[in-house]
């Protein structure tokens, strides 16, 4: 797959040295974002769905803070911040599935598996036993990113991706969790490289410019503590959405939650748990040895719109 530009990384590392000191064994991650706010109607050749103009701002808040922490956001001519444009599944699908797929691509537009850490923001749904996500335009007739379970379209981690955040509805539904792990590797490409963590949502999630800070804090807290904890703590919304007009504090139980889920893999239960509770953006571990086990971090009884109460 893609070979990273070593001199570029070295130059960036030197430039960062004056302001950022990473732990021994840690390095600046390549960080990318893929967000759609302006969806294109099918009548205009797009994949449809309603616009959400504030969505890219939420993902950008995470991406900007990652940059502020010293991580690498791409060369000037190819900043790894992809908003709208020709957002197709080609950036996310694996060449083992289709030879035209480019999840590993380094040149613009860089694929998701070129990144070490990435965030994807778009409408999603429960596509049977896995997450489906709306793209902006079709690629070879396909309008959806499909990840996990019975879908073999997208397999990440065989190149570089370690941490994926899905700012997308139903990206980590309770009934689809078991199948996520099998797409956190592509053993046909690499027998040793794997993703470390996949973070998403059970049920529907919410969009607002007032939520930008949640994404910024996710990036920030993922340096002082575990990424899983940063995701779940900052993205959880306790009974504060979809409330009846008389019940803004949920005293009468009318409100809904937003339900983040953090997900790690490992060769054993203790291994997966250890990774989930300790790995940070500035303290990454070696790749997991297998996808045999997975562990999750979540809020008990989380009850979102669009799904039943979280029950893994």
């Amino acid at each position, binding site marked *: 797959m893609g070979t990273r530009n070593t001199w570029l990384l070295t130059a960036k590392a030197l430039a960062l040295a004056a302001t950022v000191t990473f*732990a021994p064994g840690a390095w600046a991650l390549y960080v990318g974002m893929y967000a759609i706010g302006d969806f294109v109607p*099918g009548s205009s050749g797009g994949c449809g769905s309603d616009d*959400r*103009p504030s969505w890219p701002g939420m993902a950008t808040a995470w991406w900007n803070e990652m940059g502020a922490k010293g991580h690498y956001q791409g060369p000037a001519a190819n900043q790894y911040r992809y908003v709208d444009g020709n957002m197709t*599944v080609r950036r996310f699908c694996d060449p083992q599935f*289709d*030879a*035209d797929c480019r999840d590993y691509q380094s040149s613009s537009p860089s694929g998701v598996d070129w990144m070490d850490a990435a965030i994807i923001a778009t*409408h*999603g*749904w*429960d596509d049977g036993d896995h997450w*489906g996500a709306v793209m902006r335009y079709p690629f070879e007739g396909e*309008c*959806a990113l*499909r990840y996990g379970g019975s879908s073999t*379209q997208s397999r990440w981690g065989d190149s570089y991706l370690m941490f994926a955040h899905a700012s997308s509805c*139903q990206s980590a539904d309770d009934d689809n*969790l*078991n199948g996520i792990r099998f797409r956190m590797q592509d053993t046909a490409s690499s027998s040793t490289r794997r993703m470390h963590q996949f973070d998403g949502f059970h049920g*529907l*999630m*919410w*969009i*607002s410019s007032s*939520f930008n*800070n949640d994404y910024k804090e996710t990036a920030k*807290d993922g*340096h002082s503590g*575990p990424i899983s904890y940063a995701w779940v*703590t900052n993205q959880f919304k306790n009974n*504060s*959405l*979809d*409330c*009846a*007009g*008389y019940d*803004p*504090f*949920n*005293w*009468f139980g009318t409100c809904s939650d937003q339900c983040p889920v953090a997900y790690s893999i490992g060769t054993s239960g203790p*291994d997966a*748990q*250890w990774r*989930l509770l300790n790995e940070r953006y*500035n*303290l990454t571990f070696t790749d997991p040895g297998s996808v*045999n086990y997975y562990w999750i*971090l*979540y*809020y*008990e*009884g989380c009850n979102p*719109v*669009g*799904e*039943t109460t979280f029950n*893994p």
Partner: protein
Amino acid sequence: MNALKHALPATAVGLFLAAAGSVHAVNFQSARELSAFMKERMPPFLQNDEQRKRLVGQMLRVPIARPLAQTFDPNKAIKELFGDGSVIPSTDCRRTGTPVGERDPGDCTASIGDENGRGAFSRLSYSKSLGFGNIKFVKRSPVPTQPPATTDLPSPKLTDAEAFDTALKFLGGVLGMPTGRKYGAPEDISEIPLPPAGGKLPVRNMNIQGGGDGRTNPITIQKVVFVKRGFPLASPIPVGNFQLTYVPGPGSAIVMFDSNGISGLAVEDWQDLRLDPTMSEEDTKSADALIEEIAEDLFNDGVRSAEDLKFNVLISSEQRNQIGLLLPAVQVSVVPARKNLDEKGQEGLAFQATGGLVKEYSLVNRKEGSNAGRPRPE
């Protein structure tokens, strides 16, 4: 073989469903249609001009406690959280202004340990200008060099009621937040509404669990208390069989407990809220103007479908440097789907707009007047 081409039929079905309209959502072809949908769902008290005006009048007269700038003592918080007199705030804490004369919205920090290392680390951060209303404490244990022998983890021992009580006492007694004297705050005014008898306590468990073939029972590793800022209405607003007695304001707090006690906290956006002397209930927007404004804005934002719309009045703010001018507002939620959708219903959301949308709209017409909070070069 081009595998993607085999996906076409499914995609076509999805697009057909999208074009045909979702079974869960109503589609809008115009702002007028959205407006009509909105009128069916907006609570009557918001559509009644007289009631809305009275509500705005009440919101402009809510009791506001002393701001954190007057009640938060960083040294007290540091002593309580670190238990160590050697931890001191960073040296740039005194630089509270920017070169262009505005207040620096950044944080002042006090920490122990190396954030980038493997060892234990704790950090208290708080707004340099506390009018911005942010306080955060993070804490981590040393990172083990290899996986543990077992997955056993200790759980917090507090009940929900004990956690809620302890959290409020810490927020009021240590951080100086407006919990009322009952919880150790420096004054009686409380900006933290308590649930009525039988109401749900805002306390949740954070769990960790092994899944798949290695499935384990869930382990609660944190108990978390969620606090929302709120202000009482002098005269409750009847809403169907219920009454609206409090309205939310800008600011929230969470306090986390693990088996050793407080393991983290975050106070966010608890602004120094001020009344705008130039604003009165006479500035309240008419129902027609409000509905038209919201419908036009949502439609222009691209909202073309919704399963429901929800309306919650709240006190928002117009940020002016380190203070927030109180602004009566309504929060509108575009709800894309129902609760408790079954699997078939969820698959029916394919290619639909599933991301819920939250936006706020002022209930009053803003006019020229107050210059409160505006920076003035020396």
